[in-house]
């Protein structure tokens, strides 16, 4: 019998997988819990935490609970959140049904378009709505000229709710269509042969079967309602319609001097609402996934013929795309190329490239564009690397630490970007080792990476799930340790998934705006946050030009993603 080669011994000198795992978890925990604890601490002080006159107390909470504006904002937030859920869930599910299960023509072209609102910055979209459909918007003016009336207003609570609902349809669509994909077509065919129209089939058969996914999507959209910032800022502030995030933003200057303690108290109130919602989402998502695998038999699906309903479905689809995508984007595009607008202004006379010239002449704007590109490309790659490291730390290890990390990544999800940015500002200011980073784009990058942790982890773990456990077990059986497996087996196999994740992260970062608001400083400008500041300052031309540039950047990312066949949904 030939000699038996011994099993490979553990390598000495190289830190073991466990040490590296511990380090990853430690860093992640600090990055997530650090800023949040600072906000928590600040909320129980009576002055900014660096103010020598501060004392501990609940004065901040007392103030905001006694402020009628707070309750107003809370009420509005709840109303908008509920309203947009009521709009987005049925519409998103219906669109998903039409796209997944029927023979609607031109589906391949429609799908990416439906997802567009989720990739355009809400700041840009809101601005687009103002410019396109506001009281002197392009469409309003044209409608007045052509039809004599323009019966819509965009500055009301109702309008904000409708726009918010429409722009969140993609969130519902993604989950509803994934669930519909996993249904077998036999249940629907049975209904058709019994005489039900496609619409009837949708309502009575398909949609009830995907109820768990729809429930999850409903909770998700409701939750997102509390995170709205750009939309209420642009549409609501002039009317004095406040939501929690804009109320918080207003507190920045309400008392004349910074009231960080008040802002922190509002922040904690927001998190108190959003964190349970995040936990609920997680539970529902697990339920939905379980349900989907039970229903598993996703065989060759026969499409339901729409017949005479085709025109209605097409009309619905086109109407949705028109209102949600075409109107705002065309508004911005037009605004970027004209000098002024309004009643009685001829657009062709007003054509100009001045807005763009102004953008490219101004250092801060140029820097914003470059920074935005950098943070999406280089930053995005680094971010995906970090997420992958965390993914490996929890991959296939179902112990207490993995569960801890699971919940840990949910925390930043519950904190609105606006606050996360503020908390990071404080961390950078007052934590000496990090201070030199504050005026660099790196500070923005860390905040972005932490804020989007939950989303990124979902992307990474879905890539990791694709790797059959047997491939890793086979490596173990020939003698590979955990670290070797991660590097030489799992990592090469998830590379396509990582590239897809990078593209998605790129688009998310391009679209980000609220996280950077408080971190905005000379050197850390990014387009999104700069748009907020410019909007406040009223430089509408620049806002339009920058918004268009932002859309183009996201569009490039989207085009590449589609080209590479990246799945745009998680």
């Amino acid at each position: 019998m030939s000699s038996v080669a011994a099993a490979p011994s553990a390598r000495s000198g190289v830190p073991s997988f466990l040490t590296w795992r511990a380090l990853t978890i430690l860093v992640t925990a600090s990055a997530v819990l650090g800023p949040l604890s600072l906000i928590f601490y600040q909320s129980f002080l009576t002055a900014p935490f660096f103010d020598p006159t501060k004392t501990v107390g609940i004065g901040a909470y007392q103030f905001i609970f006694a402020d009628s504006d707070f309750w107003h904002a809370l009420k509005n937030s709840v109303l908008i959140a509920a309203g947009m859920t009521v709009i987005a869930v049925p519409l998103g599910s219906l669109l998903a049904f039409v796209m997944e299960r029927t023979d609607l023509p031109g589906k391949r072209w429609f799908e990416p378009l439906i997802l567009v609102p989720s990739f355009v910055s809400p700041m840009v979209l809101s601005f687009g709505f103002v410019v396109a459909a506001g009281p002197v918007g392009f469409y309003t003016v044209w409608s007045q000229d052509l039809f004599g009336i323009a019966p819509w207003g965009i500055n009301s609570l109702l309008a904000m709710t409708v726009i918010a609902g429409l722009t969140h349809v993609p969130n519902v669509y993604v989950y509803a269509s994934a669930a519909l994909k996993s249904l077998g077509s036999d249940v629907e065919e049975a209904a058709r042969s019994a005489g039900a129209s496609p619409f009837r089939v949708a309502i009575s058969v398909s949609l009830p079967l995907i109820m768990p996914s729809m429930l999850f999507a409903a909770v998700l959209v409701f939750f997102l309602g509390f995170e709205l910032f750009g939309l209420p800022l642009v549409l609501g502030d002039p009317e004095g319609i406040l939501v929690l995030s804009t109320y918080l933003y207003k507190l920045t200057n309400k008392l004349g001097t910074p009231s960080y303690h008040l802002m922190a108290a509002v922040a904690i109130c927001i998190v108190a609402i959003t964190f349970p919602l995040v936990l609920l989402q997680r539970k529902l998502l697990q339920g939905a996934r379980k349900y989907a695998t039970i229903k598993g038999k996703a065989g060759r699906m026969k499409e339901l013929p729409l017949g005479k309903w085709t025109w209605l479905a097409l009309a619905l689809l086109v109407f949705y795309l028109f209102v949600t995508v075409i109107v705002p984007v065309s508004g911005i595009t037009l605004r970027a190329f004209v000098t002024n607008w309004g009643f009685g202004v001829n657009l062709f006379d007003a054509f100009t490239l001045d807005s763009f010239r102004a953008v490219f002449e101004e250092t801060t704007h140029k820097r914003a564009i470059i920074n935005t590109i950098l943070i999406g490309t280089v930053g995005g790659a680094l971010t995906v690397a970090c997420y992958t490291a965390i993914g490996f730390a929890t991959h296939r290890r179902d112990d207490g630490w993995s569960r801890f990390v699971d919940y840990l990544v949910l925390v930043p999800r519950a904190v609105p970007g606006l606050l996360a940015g503020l908390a990071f500002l404080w961390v950078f200011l007052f934590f000496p080792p990090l201070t030199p980073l504050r005026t660099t784009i790196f500070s923005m990058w860390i905040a972005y990476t932490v804020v989007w942790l939950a989303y990124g982890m979902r992307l990474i773990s879905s890539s990791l799930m694709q790797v059959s456990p047997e491939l890793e077990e086979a490596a173990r059986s020939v003698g590979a340790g955990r670290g070797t497996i991660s590097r030489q087996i799992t990592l090469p196999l998830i590379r396509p998934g990582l590239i897809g994740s990078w593209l998605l992260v790129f688009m998310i970062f391009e679209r980000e705006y609220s996280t950077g608001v408080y971190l905005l400083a000379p050197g850390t400008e990014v387009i999104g946050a700069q748009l907020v500041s410019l909007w406040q300052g009223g430089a509408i031309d620049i806002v339009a030009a920058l918004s268009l540039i932002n859309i183009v950047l996201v569009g490039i990312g989207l085009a590449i993603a589609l080209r590479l066949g990246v799945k745009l949904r998680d």
Partner: protein
Amino acid sequence: MKTWLKTAIGALALVPAAAIAQVPAGYPADYAQTIAAAKKEGKVVIYSALDTKAASPLIKDFSALYPDVKVEYNDMNSTELYNRFIAEVASGQGSADVMWSSAMDLQVKLVDDGQALAYKSPEVAKLPGWSVYKNQAYGTTYEPAVFIYNKRLVSADEVPADHAAFAKLINTKVDKFKGKVTTYDIEKSGVGFMFVVQDTKYFPAMKDIEKGFGATSYRVYSSTGNMLEKVSSGEHLLGYNVLGSYALVRAKKDPNLGVQLPKDYTLVLSRVMFIGKSAKNPNAAKLWVDYILSQRGQKLIGSDVELFSIRDDVDAEYTAAKLNKQMGGTVKPIPVSAEITQMLDSKKRLEFLGAWKAAVAAGGAK
């Protein structure tokens, strides 16, 4: 002659002077030391509420005057200016050398908190008394608060000449102006807040205007740009207490925008500048402050920069002197003094805001 001598001395002293920096006329001789020290420092960090594009003529001219002093100009809104400054100072990080903001009250507060370097500018004698505070903070501009209106849609006889007329207009012609009157969001805009506080001083019937705002469901913004844009486009028809420097500049090019300086009294805002006590480049900062207050700097402020110059002895398009002449004695500049920091007290401020909102709501309830 003197210049060449100085250069020779400088060269002999082996100071690496790349160019000739003169002591400005009328300045004490030892100012040369300040200039030399500033050269060594090499840069001045400015936090300012005036956007970079508007300030660029000043930056360019200053750089021509003192080529060795690089200007690091950071623009941000006045709230951020204040927040950033105090946070950076508290964290011991070092902050701006020069603070230049339209939030006069916050600037004065910072001086009262001991954050300003005591520095008597050589230009002090040429400045009006109300604009200098403890020789630490200086008013630098003279910007009126004006009414604006849309020329196409508001008839000439409707345009309010003074505050009483404004109140009357929006309280009587409610239907025409419903949703079309705009002013600053005084909860968000420190400047807007300061203006209306001063209004209550000079216009006892201010409540009428507040009621009118309520009746016409006024729209509020935190920025001048927004208001100008909306009145010009016709989305809004009237604007109240808009910063006149921006308005007049825009009105020059924009045929839709009309500007009216109120005849009973016109409030004037002066951007306040001071040198940070813990400034890393105090001498460079002094150069900048003196430059802004000098005739040369003020001339640019009154022309290319299109704010109003505060000095009387300046010949430019927009000067305090011209404004005073135009309006007679009714111009009321907001003083750079401790008086304006009273409303920073949270309790008083909230009381004022509460009363304002109540008056507006009462007007809207009809």
